[in-house]
C-alpha cells in the first residue's frame, strides 16, 4: 500500500470519510475548481478517540533544530500563482511583476524584490491544500491545527499555546517574557482548555514600547505607589491570604508584572526607532516583524511569536495598483506585498546577521489559496481556493528548496514532493512546527475536559499527518 492509499484508509477507518472527491484523480480536482461557485466546501477530519489507547506518544524522531517559531499568518488567503508559485499567464500576469529566475525559481521581483534577495534562505511548499474555504473556519483551523468542528476542536489550544506549555520546563528563572506573543493578532484563538498562562500575549507594536509596561506618571512615582500598595495589601495578597487560594497568587502575579516594567529588556524588545521601522517597511506588519526579531534576540523565554497580516482577500481588483507618494495603497496584491516583502526580507536577513536564524523557524501561510488562471470576470479578482503554498525559513530548514509542483495553471498538485505523496495539510505544517522545536507531535495529553485524550496533531496514532522532513534536506 502506498502512502497516499494508507492516508485515505486511515481517514476512512476513523471513520469519517475525510477524503473528498477532488482529492482523488486529478481531473476531478478540475471539476471541483469549476464547481467552486456552487460553494462546495472542504471535508473534515474528526477522529473519535479509540478507547484504551495509551495517553502517550509514539516513538518519533523530532528534528529539534529550532528554539522558537515566528509564524507570519497572512489572513484573507494570499494568491499563490502571483507570489510563491508564480504562473506567468500571458495577458493575465502584469508586466510589472518583473519575474526573474533566482536559484532556478521564478520570482515576481516587482512585488517580492526583497524576498528575492534572501531567497537562498527560503523554502517553499507548493503542494499545500486547505480543508475549508470559509475564512474564520480555515483561520481557526490553521491556528489550532485541527478541525474546529471536531469535538475537541472546541477546546483546542492555539499551536502557540501547545508550544508554550511544552517549553515551559525549559524556562530559565531569569527569563521574563511570556512564552507566546501574538502581534497584530487580536482575533487569534486562545489557550483553549490549557491554562490561560499559555494564552497568547496579544499586543500591537508601538514605537514607545509595550504600552502596558509604561507608567504614565513615571518610574519614581510608580515606585512610591508600588511601595504604598505593598504596605496596604500585603495581607490579602500574601501567602496566608484570608481570602484563600485565588488571592494568594496575586502577590506573585504582580511581582512578575512589575519585573516587566522599567526593564531595559522589555523597552529594548518592544520599542523601536523610526530608522529601524523604515528598514522593515514602516508598516504595522513591518513593525511587528521587527519586534518579533528583537524578542528572539532578547532570549527571554518566548518560544512562539505570531504576526498577523490581514487584507489578502482579493476578490476584487487584485492587480489594481495604486500608488500614493511612492507607497502602494489600496486593497490589491501590490499593497499587500508592499507590506509583507520588506518586512519578511529584513526579518530573515537580520536574524541571519545576529546568528539567530538557524534557531528560529519562520513559517508563512494563509488560511487557504486563491483561484488560478484568468481573473474573475466580474471583479478582476481571485476567489477562494484550496490549493495553497507555505513558506519556511531558518530553524534548520534548508534554504532555496522548493517542495511540490503544481500543474501549469497552479490549480492542483502534480508532484507532492514529499514522503507522504499527497498534499501538505495544515496538520502537517503543525507537525512540522512541533518537530522543528523538538516536540513530539504524536503526544496525547490526558487532561482535556472531555477525557478523550488531546492529540497534539489529530489522528497521530495512525500517523495520519507528519512533519515535512524534506524541508531539512
Amino acid at each position: 500500500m502506498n502512502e497516499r492509499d494508507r492516508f485515505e484508509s486511515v481517514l476512512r477507518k476513523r471513520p469519517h470519510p475525510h477524503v473528498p472527491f477532488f482529492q482523488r484523480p486529478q481531473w476531478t480536482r478540475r471539476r471541483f475548481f469549476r464547481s467552486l461557485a456552487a460553494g462546495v466546501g472542504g471535508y473534515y477530519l474528526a477522529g473519535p478517540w479509540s478507547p484504551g489507547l495509551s495517553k502517550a506518544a509514539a516513538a518519533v524522531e523530532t528534528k529539534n533544530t529550532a528554539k522558537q517559531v515566528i509564524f507570519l499568518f497572512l489572513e484573507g488567503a494570499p494568491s499563490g500563482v502571483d507570489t510563491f508559485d508564480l504562473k506567468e499567464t500571458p495577458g493575465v500576469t502584469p508586466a510589472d511583476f518583473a519575474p526573474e529566475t533566482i536559484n532556478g525559481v521564478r520570482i515576481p521581483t516587482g512585488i517580492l524584490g526583497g524576498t528575492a534577495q534572501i531567497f537562498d534562505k527560503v523554502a517553499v511548499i507548493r503542494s499545500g491544500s486547505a480543508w475549508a474555504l470559509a475564512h474564520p473556519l480555515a483561520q481557526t483551523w490553521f491556528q489550532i491545527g485541527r478541525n474546529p468542528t471536531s469535538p475537541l476542536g472546541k477546546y483546542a489550544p492555539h499551536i502557540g499555546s501547545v508550544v508554550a506549555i511544552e517549553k515551559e520546563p525549559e524556562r530559565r528563572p531569569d527569563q521574563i517574557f511570556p512564552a507566546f506573543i501574538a502581534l497584530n493578532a487580536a482575533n487569534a484563538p486562545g489557550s483553549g482548555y490549557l491554562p490561560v498562562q499559555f494564552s497568547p500575549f496579544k499586543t500591537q507594536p508601538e514605537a514607545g514600547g509595550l504600552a502596558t509596561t509604561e507608567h504614565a506618571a513615571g518610574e519614581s512615582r510608580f515606585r512610591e505607589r508600588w511601595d504604598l500598595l505593598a504596605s496596604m495589601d500585603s495581607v490579602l495578597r500574601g501567602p496566608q491570604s484570608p481570602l484563600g487560594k485565588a488571592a494568594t497568587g496575586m502577590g506573585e502575579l504582580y511581582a512578575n508584572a512589575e519585573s516587566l516594567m522599567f526593564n531595559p529588556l522589555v523597552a529594548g524588545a518592544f520599542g523601536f526607532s523610526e530608522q529601524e521601522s523604515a528598514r522593515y517597511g514602516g508598516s504595522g506588519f513591518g513593525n511587528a516583524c521587527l519586534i518579533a526579531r528583537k524578542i528572539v534576540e532578547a532570549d527571554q523565554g518566548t518560544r512562539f511569536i505570531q504576526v498577523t497580516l490581514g487584507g489578502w482577500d482579493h476578490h476584487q481588483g487584485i492587480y489594481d495598483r495604486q500608488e500614493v507618494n511612492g507607497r502602494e495603497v489600496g486593497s490589491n496584491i501590490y499593497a499587500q506585498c508592499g507590506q509583507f516583502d520588506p518586512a519578511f526580507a529584513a526579518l530573515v536577513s537580520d536574524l541571519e546577521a545576529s546568528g539567530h536564524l538557524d534557531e528560529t523557524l519562520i513559517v508563512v501561510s494563509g488560511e487557504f489559496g486563491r483561484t488560478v488562471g484568468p481573473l474573475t470576470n466580474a471583479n478582476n479578482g481571485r476567489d477562494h481556493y484550496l490549493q495553497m503554498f507555505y513558506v519556511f525559513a531558518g530553524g534548520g530548514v534548508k534554504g532555496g528548496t522548493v517542495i511540490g509542483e503544481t500543474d501549469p495553471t497552479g490549480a492542483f498538485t502534480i508532484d507532492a514532493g514529499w514522503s507522504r505523496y499527497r498534499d501538505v495539510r495544515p496538520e502537517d505544517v503543525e507537525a512540522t512546527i512541533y518537530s522543528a522545536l523538538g516536540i513530539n507531535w504524536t503526544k496525547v495529553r490526558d487532561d482535556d475536559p472531555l477525557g478523550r485524550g488531546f492529540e497534539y496533531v489529530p489522528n497521530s496514532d495512525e500517523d495520519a499527518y507528519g512533519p515535512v522532513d524534506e524541508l531539512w534536506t
Partner: protein
Amino acid sequence: MRILLRLGVILGAAGLAWLAITPSSVLSQAQAAEPDEETHDIGVPHAGCSFFGAKREDFLRVGLGASLMAMTARAELTTLVAAAIPSSALVPRSRGRAFDKFPGQGDSIDDFIFGELKLRGIPPALPATDSEFLRRVTLDLTGRIPTQQEVIAFLSDADTEKRGRKVSELLAASQWADRWAMFFGDLYHNTIVTAQVNRYVDGRDAFHLFLLESLRQNKPYDQLVREMLASTGAADGRNYPDEYATYEQFQQITSDYQGNPVKPTGASYIVGGLTTGGPVQDTYDALAAATARDLLGISHMDCILCHDGRNHLDALSVWGAGAKRAQGWGLAAFFSQTRLTRPRRLPPPPEGQQPLRPQYWIVAGDERGDYRLNTTTGNRPARQPASDAAAVVAPPAYPFGGGGNAGGESHGEALGRLLTADKQFARAAVNYVWREFFGRGIVEPPDQFDPARLDPAAPPPDPWTIQPSHPALLEFLAGEFIEQGFDLQWLMSEIANSSAYQLSSKYEGVWNPTYETYFARHQVRRLRAEELHDALLISGGLPAQYTVSPAIGAVTFAMQFPDVQLVPRVPRREQTGLLGATPSFLDSFFRGDRDETARSGEGSILQALQLMNSPLVLARVDARRQGTALAAIVEQADDVAVQLLYLRVLSRPPTAEELSSGVQTLRSGERTAKAEDLMWSLYNKVDFIFNY
C-alpha cells in the same frame, strides 16, 4: 459583633461545638449583636477594628458617618452616570407549599447547605458583614459595584430586613437585566463571528435584545427558551422582501434603521448551529449538541451524535456510556425542518459600485424536512440505517423520556414543549445560576450533567458516586423553580437571601480544600472584565460613551455590550485615548470569544499590568483631570478624603487603622500626589479586584 468574633474563635478551636448550634441561631445572634453602643470620634482609630473587624459598619453611623452623609447630599462629588434604581422593589415571594423531601432534609437552601455541613462536622464561616454583603450581592446581581451613596445608605440603615430589601431592589434594577443578558449571551454563545458563521451585527444585536427584553420583563425562563427554539424569520428581526426589485431598494431597506429597525428575536440561536463542510445533518447535529449543552447541561450529547457512548464515554458518564447515536438523531431531528438561508441573488449595483452583500440570515420552516440517514461525508461519521429494512429517516424523538411532534406544532415548538417539561431543564438552569453566585455548581462543571447519577435513591453502580454535591438541594431548587413558573428573579432572590450565600469569604478555622464542595465559606472570584471596567467608571468618574451598533446605539457600561468580540469598536482617531484603552483592558481579563475560548476567571500578568498602567486607571487617579471623582475628593479634609476613597473604590469605609495610615499618607508629601497614589493603590488591592 464582638460576640460573633469570639464565637468564631471558639468554633475554630472546637469545631464540634458547632453541632450544638443551628445556623439560624448563629445568624440571629449576629443580628442581635448588631447595635454597638460605642461611639467614635472622627479620625480617631479604634484599636479593635481590624481589616475584617466587626465594627466598621457601625463606624459610619456615628460622627463621621453622619457628616459624610450630609456632605454627599450637598456636594456634587461625581459625574457618575449610574442608572437610577427604580424604587419599586419586588414584592418578596413566599416560599410556597411544602415539598416532597428527601428524608431528613429541609425546605430551604439553608436547610440543605447547613444540614450537610452539620452532618459532616464542618463549621461554616461567619456571616458576611453588611458592607461585604452589599458589594457581593450588587456585583453578583447587577455586575456593578455599589455607589458611594448606596454604601452609605445601606450601612446606615437600621432596618433588620434591609438585606432582603436590597436584593429586591437590585433585581428590579435595569442593571440586573444588563448583567444577566451578558450571562445568557455567554451561555448561548451569542457572538458576531464564529469559526462557522457570521451572525452579522444586526443578528447578534437582535438576539441580545431578545435576552435583554426577556430579562427586563422577567419572562418565565421556560417561555424564553420555547420562544428561542421556535424562532423563525429574519435573524435580526427586520423586514425584508423575498426579492429585491432594484439594487437601490436593497440599499434603502437595509440601511434604514429607523423605518426598519432591528427587533428582538432568538433566531440567531438557531443560526449559531450552521455547520459548513458537510451535509445539512451536521447543522441539525450542531443544534442538538448546543441545545443539550446550554439548556440541559449535557455536553456529552455532542459525542453521542458521532457514535454510541459504549467504549467512548464509559469513564465519563453512566448515562453516556449507555446512550445510542440514534438518541442523538432523535434530538437533532427536531431541527430538520429548519432552514438557514440568505437571499440568493441581488440586482446588480449601478456601474462602478462594488456590490454589497446581504448581511442577514433567514430562519425558515420547511415542513417537508426530515433527518435522513443517508450521509457518507462531512464532519461526522456516516449516517446510515441500521439494516436494509430499517427506516431511512430518524423521526424527532426527545431522548430523555421520549415524545415527538404532537401535531399542530412546528418541530421547534415540539422540542421547546418537551424540553422545558423535562426536569433536567430546570436542574441545568438552577445549577448554571447557582454557580454564578457560589463559584461552583451543585453539579460541576455545570455542562457535564450525568442524568444517571442524580438520584441517591437509585445510585449508580460502583465505583460511580452520585454526581451533585447536594442532590436533594438540586431537586428542591429545580422543583421550586418549576413551581414558581421558572421565575429567574425568584431563584436569584432565594439564593441571595440565603444565609449560605451570605457567609463570609474569610474562614476562621483551619480551611480544608474539601470544604469547598460544601460551601463552608463564600468563594471569592476575580471581577469579570466588564465588572472591573464598570467599577472604574462608577468609582472614578469619567463616564465613557461607546458607540456599539445601529441597534444598541451608545452605552456607558461594558456590561451593556451585546458581545465580547469586537466590542467596543474604537474609531481610529480615538485609539490613543481612554476609549482606545478599553478593548485590551477587557481582553486581558479573559472575557473569551463565545466560540472557541470560554470566559475565564484566571489571573495573568497582563491583568496586573493593565490595572497598574492602563489609561483607564491612570486617568481616574489624576486629581488634576476634570471630571474625575478624585478632583472633588482632594478638596475635602484629609480624613474625609480617605473615607471617600475607600467608600468609592472598595465600597466600604476604611478601618480605623486604614483611616489613620491613609491620613498619614496624604500628609507625607505633596497632598494631591499622595491622594493619587492612595487611590491607585486601592485600585490594585485584592479587595477591589475580587468579589469576596
